[in-house]
């Protein structure tokens, strides 16, 4: 029984289409409208196209050929043919019957060239067909093109083709139908229902469908015409400045223009009579009062148009009401649309906050990565290493060089990370042995000496790699972004950096708290003499600690190089921020560095959010904030306590 019903339903569905196909013969239609097909116009071609579409499969083929500019007239007999390119010539098919006519040279056929307006009509008609096409791909294409270029005529087409065997496509059709209903349905109640049906949906397409409804015009009326859908009555001086309001009246031709200084000047220049204007000598006209007198004199003579005086301006402004008016005439629809937009805005606001937090988090992880090496050398050992940024740069260049030898991005990255550590570890140990060791008691001079190393290394990198940026390409699986919805998304590379930062945090904690090396490092930093008495060699430990910090900087360099451009200035871009991170966080405490990085990252993104166009300002204000912050917590967010403070 159920099977029978199903078959019946199927037959009922198919029959009308089949029946319609029988009603009109394509050849008859083509011969009837031959003139219009040859010289179509956008306004009148609609019914013709509809009739052709109604003839069935061959009609659809004709339309498609027409749309793709493959329709032509055979010169020999004037037959309407579909001319598909084939080799050097054309393969001809009879447009009306679909009969194969063999091939012909290009010169044998006069091609029809419908303009874009006509093709728009054709493709809209075709979309209706394509929406019920058995091939899901064509249905998707049709839906895509419809949602890109929607108009009122397509609503009906879409409604006819709502059924879809694919549930996902059916849902899309449903959504698009409601969206089109919002914009084009003639029944306000249906539109309101459709708007409310979306709830607090935050999709871009939904917002886009509401925006045209809420589009406003700014107008001035003496009497407000009935049926005006008023968005807001503007108060003069508040919502709308008096100058702008009067400029509006002038622009609409409702009031005479006010005299601008330029216009007054030009008018005066036209009426110079024997070295004076309106009885005022030219020499005195370098003064606005004198010019006013001269103009008034000219007005009195009747030689110039009287300009609008202040009183007239006031009167005109008082006479008119200034309104924001919706283009949409129905107030119920606009009210519903406004309510819907407001509720989506709250949700979008929340999502933007979430997105901003993700951005801030990834910025914080970058700062943390850049600063964690410093947390070792500066935080634990108290050595200011201005060349730290150059170690980051060395790491990035190591990654670049490795990529020159190993083509596979993933493998090269796996090789580059430890190699960068080794290279910068060695550089760090060398720096410590050669320079810093001699300056432990002179911190300011360490700063300067390492700065000397820094400029030397920077120039060296410039000499070797040149000044232009070098690419350090990330593997393909790090491309793209994790997208939650239209608003919230984060690129995989940022996630990777976040993970890397976490790994380093764990690594640091493990080394410092769980290994022999960490124990000795802590002993040496707290009391070198006592540590030495216990058989720890402070020299060796200092060397290793400094190497460790530098090595971490190298790995951070590879990570930073993946998304920033690798130049010799890569390091110096991060050095001040890195020191800030450590100082703000609290020297000698990794949690402090973490807190510092989080603070700086979130702060910078937060300021950027207030002023999105200006990242320079964000950095300026962030640094100012840090300078002031240091005033109140000179030892950072997490201050070292006890005897370690003085050391």
């Amino acid at each position, binding site marked *: 029984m159920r099977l029978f019903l199903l078959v019946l339903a199927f037959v009922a569905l198919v029959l009308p289409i089949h029946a319609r196909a029988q009603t009109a013969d394509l050849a008859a239609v083509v011969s009837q409208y031959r003139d219009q097909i040859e010289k179509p116009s956008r306004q009148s071609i609609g019914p013709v196209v509809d009739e052709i579409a109604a003839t069935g499969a061959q009609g659809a083929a004709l339309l498609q050929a027409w749309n793709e500019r493959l329709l032509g007239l055979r010169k020999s007999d004037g037959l309407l043919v579909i001319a598909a390119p084939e080799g050097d010539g054309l393969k001809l098919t009879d447009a009306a019957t679909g009969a194969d006519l063999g091939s012909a040279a290009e010169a044998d056929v006069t091609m029809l060239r419908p303009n874009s307006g006509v093709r728009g009509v054709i493709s809209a008609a075709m979309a209706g067909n394509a929406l019920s096409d058995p091939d899901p791909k064509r249905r998707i294409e049709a839906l895509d093109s419809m949602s890109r270029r929607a108009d009122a005529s397509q609503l009906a087409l879409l409604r006819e083709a709502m059924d879809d065997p694919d549930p996902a496509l059916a849902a899309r059709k449903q959504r698009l139908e409601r969206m089109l209903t919002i914009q084009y349905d003639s029944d306000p109640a249906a539109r309101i229902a459709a708007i409310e049906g979306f709830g607090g949906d935050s999709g871009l397409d939904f917002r886009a469908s509401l925006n045209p409804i809420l589009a406003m015009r700014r107008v001035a009326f003496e009497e407000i015409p009935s049926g005006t859908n008023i968005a807001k009555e503007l108060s003069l001086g508040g919502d709308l400045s008096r100058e702008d309001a009067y400029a509006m009246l002038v622009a609409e031709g409702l009031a005479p223009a006010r005299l601008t200084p330029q216009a007054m000047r030009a008018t005066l220049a036209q009426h110079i009579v024997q070295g004076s204007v309106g009885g005022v000598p030219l020499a005195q006209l370098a003064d606005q009062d004198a010019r006013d007198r001269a103009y008034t004199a000219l007005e009195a003579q009747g030689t110039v148009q009287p300009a609008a005086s202040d009183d007239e301006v006031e009167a005109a402004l008082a006479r008119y009401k200034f309104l924001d008016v919706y283009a949409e005439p129905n107030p119920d629809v606009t009210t519903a649309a406004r309510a819907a937009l407001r509720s989506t805005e709250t949700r979008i606001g929340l999502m933007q906050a979430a997105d901003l937090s993700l951005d801030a988090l990834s910025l914080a992880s970058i700062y943390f990565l850049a600063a964690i090496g410093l947390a070792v050398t500066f935080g634990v050992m108290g050595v200011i290493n201005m060349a730290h940024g150059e170690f980051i740069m060395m790491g990035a260049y190591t990654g670049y060089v490795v990529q020159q030898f190993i083509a596979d991005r993933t493998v090269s990255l796996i090789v580059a990370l430890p190699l960068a550590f080794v290279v910068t570890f060695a550089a760090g140990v060398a720096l410590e042995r050669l320079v810093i060791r001699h300056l432990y008691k002179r911190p300011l001079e360490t700063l300067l000496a390492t700065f000397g190393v820094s400029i030397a290394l920077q120039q060296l990198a410039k000499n070797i790699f040149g000044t232009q940026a070098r690419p350090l390409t990330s593997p393909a699986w790090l491309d793209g972004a994790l997208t939650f919805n239209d608003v919230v998304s984060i690129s995989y590379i940022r996630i990777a950096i976040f993970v890397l930062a976490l790994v380093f945090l764990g690594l640091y904690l493990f080394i410092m708290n769980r290994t022999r090396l960490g124990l000795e490092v802590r002993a040496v930093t707290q009391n070198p003499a006592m540590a030495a008495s216990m058989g720890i060699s402070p020299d060796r430990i200092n060397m290793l600690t400094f190497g460790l910090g530098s090595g971490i900087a190298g790995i951070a360099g590879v990570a930073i190089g993946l998304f920033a451009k690798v130049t010799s200035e890569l390091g110096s871009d991060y050095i001040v921020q890195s020191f800030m991170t450590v100082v703000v966080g609290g020297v000698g405490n990794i949690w402090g560095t973490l807190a510092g990085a989080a603070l700086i990252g979130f702060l910078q993104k937060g300021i950027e959010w207030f002023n999105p166009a200006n990242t320079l300002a964000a950095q*300026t204000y962030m640094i100012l904030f840090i300078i002031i912050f240091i005033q*109140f917590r000179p030892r950072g967010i997490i201050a070292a306590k006890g005897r370690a403070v003085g050391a």
Partner: protein
Amino acid sequence: MRKPLVLRHPSILVFLGVLAVFTVAVTVLSAGYGTGAISTSMVKTLGKTLCLALAAVAMDLVWGYAGILSLGQMAFFALGGYMIGMWLMVARTEGIVAGSLANLPIPPTDAEISAAVATQIFGVVGSDKFPMIWAFSGSLWGQLALVVLVPGLLALVFGWLAFRSRVNGVYLSILTQAMTLALALYLFQNDSGLRGNNGLSGLQNIPGLDAVSQEKLSIWFLWASAVTLGLGYLLIAWVASGKFGSVTRAIRDDEARVRFLGYSVEGYKLVVFVLAAVVTAIAGALYYPQAGIINPAELAPIASIYLAVWVAIGGRGRLYGAAIGAIFVSMLSSWFTGGRAPDVNLGFYTIKWVDWWQVLLGLSFVLVTLLAPKGIAGLVDLFEGLRPPKRQGQPMGPDMGSLREKEAVE
């Protein structure tokens, strides 16, 4: 009765004497007033170098005497330049605009001239109005006052905040560097009111002195720079010599001890910091009319670090050392980077000094810091036979103790 300052410190006399001889020699050899053996651009370079030397002397007061390694001195230098540059730019543009508007049938009003000047100056950053901070730009005296007041105030506020919360040592250095960076980033914005990264240009044309050729003008500026350097040197030498100077040096050596003795350490530091900022700003105000252009890149933290490098190479804690360092290194630097130094052919590689000078500078700086902390001025000590006591033996372990093995035994 105490002897006058210059007799107590003969180095001042020597310095001023050398400066005077140098100025006279350059004048005699210049194109404007003498034989023309020295080109005008060289005269300008020399004049600028004298200004840098003054900035270095001020830096020495802050760093060598008070122990504050300020990495923000060039911010004050550039601010001074900006302040004088505003007047130069407005006055000159006003002259040009008034000249072109005078041909119109109706004479222009003041408001029209001002609007035209603003369009001319701020057109590049898409504005046609004077920002608030240009309020005094029409008056030379107003801007000259600002040359002193703006950097002075900045130093006062920053120094007060920093010293009050006992930020010192390397932390202070990083903080000053951050201040410079913040200021530079701020000025890079187009809506900062100082023409963003375009900076101020055309400063070499002094309004009202159009008739004077650049050859003569460069010499005038050289004289002004030399006189200012002389006066600044005297002032700073005077500040650093008396009781005030002694307390300052004591703060450098042991801040806590001076505080316990009852001195207001913060007050002394603040006075030194502000004084140095003002002197630096004056040097900057003389420098940029000779350079002709100023933009926010001049404030980059690296510039201030170079200043520290010059002072370190010249010799900290001696004013003449700082001046020598600035003159020596900056002249050497322009010689190397100007492409005049001959390339060294090693057979397998040719060393082009334009590329390798920075490396050489960096390394020699490390060497000076490590091996000759007294810098070039240390040579004077060698000459006079002043040597530090020879201390024998190894340091007594890694702790902070100052005695060495032999001293401890004795």
